[in-house]
């Protein structure tokens, strides 16, 4: 039957087009690549103030994304934020005494953690703790300090 054959071909095309669209959405549009790179090691750091940092925010080194924020917690003893970073396993030579700072991409952009290499021999590994941390810059605080310093001058 010719008719049913063309119908079947069209339906096949339709299904292929639908699947291709789904595939394009998941591969090209979404962050599927971020899931495949989830293997890595976890490092913690204590911050006085994390500002607007969120889970899955990027962790960068020299501007290159080397990992993501895995979880954010609160330490009841020190009243500080505990941030767990998931760093990709290929970056296993980051010095142990590297410092972590929370920066903002652009003036109003999202916040991320920037690692700066230290000089230690040992590298960061699973369970390491970052000793040198710098909190997020809260814009309101800076404006407040600026106003106070202006008032002092007069």
């Amino acid at each position: 039957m010719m008719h049913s054959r063309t119908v079947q071909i069209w339906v096949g095309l339709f299904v292929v087009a639908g699947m291709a669209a789904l595939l394009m959405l998941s591969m090209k549009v979404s962050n599927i690549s971020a899931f495949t790179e989830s293997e890595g090691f976890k490092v913690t750091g204590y911050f006085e103030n994390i500002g607007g940092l969120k889970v899955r925010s990027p962790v960068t080194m020299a501007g290159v994304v080397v990992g993501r924020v895995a979880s954010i917690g609160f330490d009841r003893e020190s009243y500080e934020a505990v941030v767990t970073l998931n760093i990709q396993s290929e970056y296993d030579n980051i010095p142990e005494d590297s410092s972590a700072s929370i920066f903002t991409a652009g003036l109003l952009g999202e916040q991320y953690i920037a690692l700066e290499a230290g000089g230690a021999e040992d590298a960061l590994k699973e369970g390491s703790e970052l000793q040198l941390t710098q909190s997020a810059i809260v814009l309101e605080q800076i404006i407040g300090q600026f106003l106070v310093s202006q008032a002092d001058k007069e």
Partner: protein
Amino acid sequence: MLNQLQKLGATTLGIAERLGRGHLFLWHVLSGFPALLPRFGLVISQLYSVGVLSLLIIAVAGLFVGMVLALQGYYTLVDFGATESLGVLVALSLVRELGPVVGGLLFAGRAGSALTAEIGLMKATEQLSAMEMMAVDPLHRVVAPRFMAGILAMPLLAAIFSALGVIGGYFVAVGLLGVDEGAFWSQMQAKVDLYEDILNGVIKSIVFGFVVTWIAVFEGYDAVPTSEGVSRATTNTVVHGSLAVLGLDFILTALMFD
């Protein structure tokens, strides 16, 4: 006074009765699904009329919605110097909302109305009764394949809508407005989540496909078997189907993206 009260009661009872019939009907049709699998050819020919024939309007609508989103978003974002986020704006609006919702509305208008009219006319010309006379269950033979085809077609149509919308947005943003191509895609990939956004969009479209097809085949099956009755049933399908899509979309969005 008493007459008004009686009218109100009659209307309420009528609605409840119809809802009950609709659910019994759904149960009966769903029970015909297992028997459908060995005779999948029935579903394929329905996929043709429900899916393939809706493809053109879905594709054109998706492309243009994406293009317009990019144009309009650009005028807002350019004030903040954030035109690189145009990709995020287009992709998120399409994948989360517009793909399933506008796709569902078009699906109700294009495929749902055709289903209702077809089944309604089958009833009006007593083809369904003739089947029953031959001991063929019309719910299993006529309605179930159409229902399954609707549920299968809708997520594919919504995905095609969203994907073409993103492509349309890309053409306008990069080709026409001069947004940086790399930033357009990379920002989009950084912000759109596979599970949170895309999978939830697919779930939405499956739900919409289920509800719209259910309304369509039930309206057809329950239609008053006259030409006027069929025309009213067709109108009902489009109106109720669209309202159901919009209402459910609000509920699903509230549940999914908190």
